């Protein structure tokens, strides 16, 4: 049984915050009425969840001692986080733009369209 040091508590807080944001995104993905609003829920909160979880995992990797291999692994994990922070919103934007071009109008409560389709 490991002892909970201060750095372990920091790691636990980071990973728990990441999983909290992922849970919020998943609930929105399941509950919201439209494709656009579902994408709005997952596209941002999943990106933030990946960033926070990767920061926590990189900090836990550094706890075994500051050798060259550990620093390299930690840098690679932070590279995953930075890449996903750039790539996730880009993928969301590309998919949303293709759906908009294909002519799906956004959902409204009373069923009336808020935009003219096709746009001028």
């Amino acid at each position: 049984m490991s002892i909970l040091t201060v750095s372990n508590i920091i790691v636990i807080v980071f990973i728990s915050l990441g999983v909290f944001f992922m849970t919020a995104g998943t609930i929105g993905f399941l509950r919201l009425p439209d494709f656009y609003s579902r994408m709005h829920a997952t596209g941002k909160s999943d990106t933030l969840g990946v960033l926070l979880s990767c920061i926590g995992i990189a900090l836990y990797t550094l706890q075994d001692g500051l050798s060259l291999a550990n620093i390299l692994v930690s840098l690679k994990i932070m590279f995953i986080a930075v890449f996903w922070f750039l790539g996730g919103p880009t993928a969301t934007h590309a998919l949303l733009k293709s759906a908009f071009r294909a002519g799906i109008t956004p959902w409204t409560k009373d069923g009336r369209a808020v935009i003219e389709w096709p746009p001028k």
Partner: protein
Amino acid sequence: MDNFFIAIGLILGILALICLYRGIFGPTDIDRIIGVGVVGTKTLIILLLIGFLYKRMDMFVDIALVYAILNFIAVLIFAKYFIKKGVL
């Protein structure tokens, strides 16, 4: 800490199953695409946690990196394909 990682991995697995529901029964095709993308995002974190559990972090971090790049490229190619086809 191993118990904590196992618990986080289980929570993420349950969330991935919930997202897979949208991936299978989604009302439109583009819901299915974004569902598969979200499952890939959860799998990225699960792969990193598996690396801690097997004490082979140097191997699993490369797998997770390749998985992130493949997931990103897959969603971009789907988006490009649907722009070109114009139908959903």
